[in-house]
Each structure stands twice: as structure tokens, then as C-alpha cells.
């Protein structure tokens, strides 16, 4: 028996010796704590990287989409806008772009908002609602159909399908980004002499 379990070299009354587990147990506590701290920081760092990179990706995609849709900075009619819309290729993102009118009253604050107040709560506006409420510029030549007349370019075919992660948190978490650019739009169809009005091309994009 002694052949298999030889007595320990240090006897139990040696100074400082507690036992094989008792010896290592106190050192395991800072060791595990160190590992926990390291992995917590590591995962936090990774999360920050991913969040920031996601926001940068959105930013870059906005520029790509806006460059196509801005064209030469002047739209003669809604058809040209819809044609440009077909050229947009967005990777791994949802978006919609629209041209919104600018108020003629310069002292009025910039009114475009994705949110509205309902029963004391801030909720997102639907894309359909924005078109219906004339918050989107319409081409008067297509008075019958909102889809045809509205300067709107959605990444999905049906604008009713949008469930956009609109919330204050979505902005701060980098899941949603809105950028706007000035654009000139012919607002009527006067023969050879269209009225060119001011608009804002608003691009809303999210993962």
C-alpha cells in the first residue's frame, strides 16, 4: 500500500504547509478574479468595437446612398428620383430616403422628425403616415397615387412593411442613423420654366 501512496515528503507539522488543496486555495481567488476582470473587459471592448464599427458602416452606407440619390443636385420630376432609387445598392442595411419640403418661414424650426407624441408617449411615425401627412414632397403631376407622386425611396418594395427600430436608444446604440442633404426640386411642370424649390433629401438607415 505504501508503494502506491507514499507518505508526503513534508510532514503535516511542517511550517506553512496546509495540504495540496489548502495550499493553492488562497491563490485561486485572485486568479479567478483576474480572469473574470480580463474577460469582462475583453467582452466590453469587443462590444464597443462592434457598436462603433456598426455606426461607421451605417455612416459609409448613408454616403453611398446619398451620392446616388443626390445626383447632380437637381430633380426635374419624381420619375428621375425613382430611377435613381433603382440604382441604389445597399449592403446588409435597411433604409428609406425621401425628399422633404423646407418651410418658407425661416424662423420656424426644422420640422422633420421620425417621432410623434401619442398618449403621452413618444412613438415612431409610420412611413405611410409620413407620406399621407405630406411630410414628404409630392410631385403634383401624379395627384392620384401617393406611391407614384411621393419622393420616397424605400429599400423594401412595400412601404407598409417597415418596422423600424425607432427609439431614442436606437440612435445611441448606433443601430439607426439619419442624415439630410439639401437638394433642388422642380415643384411644378411649367413649360420650359419650372419653379425650382428647396428640399432636403433625408436618408434613414438601420441594421
Amino acid at each position, binding site marked *: 500500500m505504501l508503494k502506491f501512496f507514499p507518505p508526503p515528503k513534508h510532514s503535516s507539522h511542517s511550517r506553512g504547509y496546509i495540504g495540496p488543496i489548502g495550499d493553492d486555495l488562497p491563490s485561486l481567488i485572485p486568479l479567478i478574479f483576474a480572469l473574470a476582470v480580463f474577460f469582462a473587459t475583453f467582452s466590453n471592448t469587443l462590444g464597443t468595437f462592434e457598436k462603433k464599427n456598426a455606426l461607421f458602416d451605417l455612416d459609409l452606407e448613408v454616403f453611398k446612398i446619398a451620392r446616388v440619390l443626390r445626383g447632380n*443636385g437637381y430633380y426635374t420630376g419624381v420619375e428621375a428620383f425613382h430611377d435613381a432609387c433603382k440604382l441604389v445598392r445597399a449592403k446588409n442595411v435597411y433604409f428609406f430616403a425621401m425628399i422633404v419640403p423646407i418651410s418658407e418661414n425661416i424662423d420656424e424650426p426644422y420640422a422633420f422628425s421620425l417621432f410623434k407624441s401619442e398618449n403621452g408617449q413618444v412613438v415612431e411615425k409610420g412611413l405611410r403616415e409620413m407620406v399621407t401627412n405630406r411630410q414628404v414632397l409630392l410631385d403634383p403631376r401624379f395627384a392620384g397615387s401617393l406611391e407614384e407622386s411621393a419622393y420616397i425611396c424605400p429599400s423594401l418594395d412595400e412601404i407598409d412593411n417597415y418596422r423600424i427600430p425607432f427609439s431614442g436608444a436606437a440612435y445611441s446604440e448606433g443601430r439607426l442613423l439619419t442624415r439630410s442633404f439639401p*437638394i433642388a426640386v422642380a415643384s411644378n411642370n411649367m413649360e420650359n420654366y*419650372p419653379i425650382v424649390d428647396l428640399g432636403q433629401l433625408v436618408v434613414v438607415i438601420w441594421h
Partner: protein
Amino acid sequence: MALTVRKFFPPSCRGQAALTDALFLLAIVVGVSTLLYLFSSNYGVATAEYLNHQYSSDYITAALKTILFASISHDPDKSLSNTHEVDYVLTIVKEGYAAKEPHLLEDRVLTVLRDRVRRVMKPLENSRDYLFYVQETTQASRFLFIYAWLSEFPPGTCGPNSTSKVLPSTTVVPHREYFCIAKSESNILGISQRVNGYAQSITGIGLGEVENGSPREPIPGVVFLSAWTPNCLPQGTTGGLFQFHGTPLTSEESLAHSLYDPANPIANQIQEVLSTANNGRGLIYCIPFAPA
């Protein structure tokens, strides 16, 4: 080395040695974690700044194009919706220049430009300061119109001797509009050296000129728009970029007269300040505009 370790941690103290090893590891991990945290919090700051600058740049370029493309009623008494005679803003700038002696812009043109610039820059008006000007590019390089939208810093944060300061991004700074005049282009370019997120766009135009009723060769000119993150810019006639007039203008009608007409005492006073400020290098002299 082994001897040293044995000296400090003899076999009888193996438990303490293991604990010390673990504490060393903990110290290293805390150091590494701190570095990781600092690195992650600074990660992307330059990229975000670059993207922000890119956005400003794209916005300003689009804004200038849009301002000049936009229509205006040829008849000042009629709105766009009930007139059959419309012009581009660019056209009335040329006409307004030709009609005014000694070839300044008419008050109506100044009003239209102010209106268009304000409307186009509306989405950025809380987050950016901006400056718009029309200038002859002849040897005299006269400014025909300078319009500025500048932040008003809280008292004490932007004194006469202050250097450039940036407020935290969460602070909302109220803005005020100004009509300005500058001695030379370098006064305006000085802004770009003192601010963050500066973006500018410029385009050439031909300013019309009429002599004895017939058009002459157009005078070359430029239209310029720039924007930047609100900064506290140095003021004063010594080392300052800006000098602000105490009494605001209350009517656009008197604008050209107040700023540019040599017959006006205020205009003369401004010219005197411009010629002596910063040892003759000049500055941007601005009169606040507060419509009644």
C-alpha cells in the same frame, strides 16, 4: 534566480508563493484591462471626426448648389406660387449687381440670399456655425455680401482675450445672425485654422455689369459657403478674428447702406476699423441682425 526565489519562498512557504504569483497575475491583468478600456474608449474617435467632416463637406457642397439653383419670383411683390416670371437666385445676383451703383448688391438680393442660406442650412443650424459670401475676384476683391450664423457663447466662456474653445457637444449654444464685412479673404480663411470640423465649398459666377445701358464683359466673382463646429473665436482688433458691432440692425432695407455705402458714417467707421485692426491685416467686422 532560482536561488533568489528559494531565498524568498522556501519550500515551507509554497502557499504564500502561489498567492503572490496570483496577485502578480491580477496586477498584470488589471493593467492590461485598463489599457484595453482606454483603447476601446478612444477607438474610432478619428474615424468619427473624419466621417463628420465628410458629412459637413457633402452637405456644404450640396447646399451651395441648391442655393444657386433655387427659383425666385422676378417680381419682388409676388410670391413664387402666383407669378409666371421666375428666375434663378444666381440670375438676380447678377442683375442686382448690375443695377446698383457703385456695383454693390441690391437690398432685395441680400434679403433673398439671407433667406435661401437660412432655409438650406436649417437642419444644421443648431450644430454648426456658418458663413456665406459673394465676392468680386477682380484686383480689388471686394466683398459684396457676407452673412454669418454664429454661436453666442455664455458670458465668461468667450472673452475678448480667449483662445479657441469648444464647448461639450451636449451644450446647446444659441445662435445669432450677422451681416459682416472683411478686409480680405485671408480674414475669412483664418477661421479654418482656429476651428474643428471646418468644411467649405466655393463656386465661380459671372457678375453682370452694364455700361451706358449695354452689358459689358462680366466681372468674375465667387460664391462661398463654409461651416464648422461651434467654437469660441478670438475677438478684438488685436489678434482677433471678429469684431462685433454693438447695436444690431433691425431692418434689411438699410443693410447695404449700413455696411457698404461710403456715405454712411457706420460704414466709414467699419472701414476705419478694418484698415487698422491687426496691424492692417484686418478682421471680420459683423453687425448683428435682429429683425423688428
